């Protein structure tokens, strides 16, 4: 499968490329689970100060790639650099620079939302007053007043996502890695989160997010990487990857699946 790469990135990316090392740089990343090769030699470059979307069908290897990038999965081979630091060797430095929201992992479920933020701030050694101020602001902005006083075990999936995002932002990271951040989040909260993330990137931060929503990628991301069967099948700016069509149509074409659903199921429309 050939990887499509196109020239002429937007100005912001070009500038970032010249000045600062990539926020996230992955080379030849491989991960095999038993007989299944989940990630098969992925190369990925995320430029600083950009929004980067990672898309792919279910089981494409997005979460495994993200997990390896942030140190939650050990790769079989490959290189990962975060803002110039070797992520596999200099973990302390790369962890300090990164904020993570994984998908589907548990929290300390007996803590309330506010306690989770305080715990997370404590883990990162934030001064107590700073942590308190930031947590209060994040709770205000993300509309987490109720979730802040509820044990995580009793919070809805959307609230857990927002709390997860709040803890990822708490230490003001330079790279934010979010796995399915908008899953199960209501539209109002989604708009708020998008606004927060835009401000984060506008302030020089970099955001990498995996999602199934092509609309979201089109609206938010500067660049996108399409992963299929553990390999990168397209990467570049959103406009380049879309190649003049909607990103969704292009995505379906890239992953080699026909948008089925137009044939069969005659009984569903009343025809007998």
């Amino acid at each position: 499968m050939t990887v499509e790469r196109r020239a002429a990135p937007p100005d912001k990316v070009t500038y970032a490329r010249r000045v600062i090392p990539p926020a996230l740089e992955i080379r030849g990343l491989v991960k095999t689970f038993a007989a299944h090769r989940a990630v098969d030699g992925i190369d990925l470059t995320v430029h600083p100060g950009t929004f980067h979307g990672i898309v792919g069908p279910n089981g494409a290897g997005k979460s495994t790639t993200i997990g390896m990038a942030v140190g939650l999965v050990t790769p079989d081979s490959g290189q990962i650099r975060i803002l110039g630091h070797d992520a596999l060797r200099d973990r302390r430095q790369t962890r300090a620079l990164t904020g993570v929201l994984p998908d589907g992992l548990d929290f300390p479920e007996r803590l309330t939302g506010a306690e989770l933020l305080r715990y997370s701030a404590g883990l990162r050694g934030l001064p107590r007053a700073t942590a308190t101020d930031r947590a209060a602001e994040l709770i205000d902005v993300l509309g987490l007043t109720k979730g802040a006083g509820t044990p995580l075990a009793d919070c809805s999936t959307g609230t857990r996502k927002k709390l997860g995002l709040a803890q990822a932002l708490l230490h003001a990271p330079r790279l934010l890695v979010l796995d399915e951040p908008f899953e199960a989040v209501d539209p109002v909260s989604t708009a708020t989160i998008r606004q927060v993330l835009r401000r984060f990137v506008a302030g020089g931060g970099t955001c990498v997010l995996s999602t199934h929503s092509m609309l979201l990628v089109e609206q938010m991301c500067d660049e996108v990487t399409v992963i299929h069967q553990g390999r990168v099948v397209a990467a570049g700016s959103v406009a380049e990857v879309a190649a003049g069509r909607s990103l969704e149509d292009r995505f379906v074409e890239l992953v080699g699946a026909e948008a089925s659903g137009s044939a069969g199921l005659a009984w569903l429309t009343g025809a007998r």
Partner: protein
Amino acid sequence: MSTELSAPGRLGGTLGAIAVPARMRATMLRRSLREHPGPTVAGLVGLLAAAWLIRYALRGDQHTLGLLAGAWVLGWIVLPLLLGGGRGRVRPAHLRLEPIGGIPAAVGPAVSLVALAALPVHAARYGAVAVLVTAGGAVLLWLLGLIGSAIALEVVGHAGGPAGALLTGVFTGTAMGVAGSLWAVFPWVSVLLVAAPEEVVRAMAYVPSAWPLSAVTGPTGQGARLTATLVGIVALCAAAYIMLVRRVIATGVPFRPRRTTALPLVRRGGDDLAARRGTTAASPAEDGQAQRGWRAWVPAATRAVVGRELRAWTRHPLRLQYLAFAVVYAALLAGLPLLSDVDLLLPWAGPLAVLGVAAMSAGLVGLDGTALWLPLTTPGGERAEVRGRALAWLVLVTPIGVLLAVAGVILAPDVDPLAALSTLPALLGAGASVPVWVSLLRVRPVADPRHPTAADNPTDIVSVLVATAAGLLATAPVLALVIWGPSEVAPLLPLVGLLGGAAAWWGGVWLADERLARRGTTVLAAAGQRSRPPETVLPLTWDLQWCRENTSTAWALGLLTVGWIPVIPQGLMPLAFGIDSGWIVAGHLSGSAHTAMGLAMVGLGVAMLLTGLVLWDRRPQPGGS
């Protein structure tokens, strides 16, 4: 392809509509009883116990009978919490149009009714009216048990809320403690069965289970008063249950108060954000003098983990259950021998409790699911995680151990407490750190870390044994000096215990650090592995074919069964207690040969047990390749 069903006649259709589901339900019940024989076995055991109670009622003591009937009703209320009733009984989803079934569910009430028939049987000696009155009282007690059991399941059973968890821990700890002290309990029970002591008789006046018999044996007028009180209690319980069910149906959630008051966020400059939102602020203890002391020498990340762990210990139902179990079990194991005037074990209540909590803590990482990702994405998070867990355990368990030990010393002033008190620091050091390592080494995740039930047990016997063995190893120098050392070294015992504890702490923390630093992602992956491989099915009878097909498992079972013989009767008994009966090999030797043979036997047994554990751990899983 189309399938045309033949149209049955009206009668045939009606019969079929009844017969088919009936047959299906009968088949389901038959299979359920075959695959889950628990209710049948419990029913048979219950019937045997009920028969014994009726037999006792014929000639036994009235007050003891009342006590036994009360124990029966209480057991009926509490026992379902321990037998899979952990998620509550009534849920809106249950109000579907489905037939109400379940012969197994009727086993408990039916057997209990038979058991409580012991009361009218006992009253038969006072005439027909007495039988009728007592039978009415027995029915009221039966209703009390029935409603009480339902309330217990709803109120404290759902998702093992803290109260239910504590209750379960206390109950199982009591059961195990009594079972472990049968030698001390039996004589007292024998006395009780012959005739209740005076203090028991006085106390039974306030116990409802004694009232049906008191109603017919007491002075005139007392009968009506006691029966009316019993009816009132039953009516109150019934009203409470109806209100509870209405609440569950109306709100869609079982009775469980939500925690909404923990928003400890206070801005600098006195802008109390929490107060602005109408919620309570941080507890004053947060900024209190007590925390300032340890803040100075514990890193912030470790403090954060300590805080998280202490909250988990006080809120997680299974942690509370384990804690309550270990403490009650230890207290009873040390205290129940007092019934036989043996106070030797009392100072050991503290060390036993510490050892018990350590053993029960050997699977806590699995209990937390994949929450480990947070420290794994934080600079230095692994060290903080290990030390925070160990420190929190120490903060929680040290006061318990010390309190129990001191209470034991006060209650048994004639017993020398030096050995027990000296082992305490050794056990605390090992108990705080080694279980952290064990639970990182052998992660057994629970199915649902958010809402675990009593059925979710993340510990296995190997983890428990390793954690226990580490505690015993840490105390070995103290025990060795107590048994074989000269009396002059006695003042040094606390120091030796302290050193043993420090060494065990250091070793456990180092092992856990190594494990998490080098294999953190492996541990996380194991914690996310929610579906467990099927357990090895062990034959309950001698099966040569099975042994041939499962050689390593058979060897493991053999070694784990036989390995105790060289350790305890052939090793520790002659070495520590000087017991040298005929079949003990060391007993036929003397002097240093006696000691050497005893030690060799201990070594042999330990080697056998360790080999057994290794083989058991590596046994092939059914269906595995």
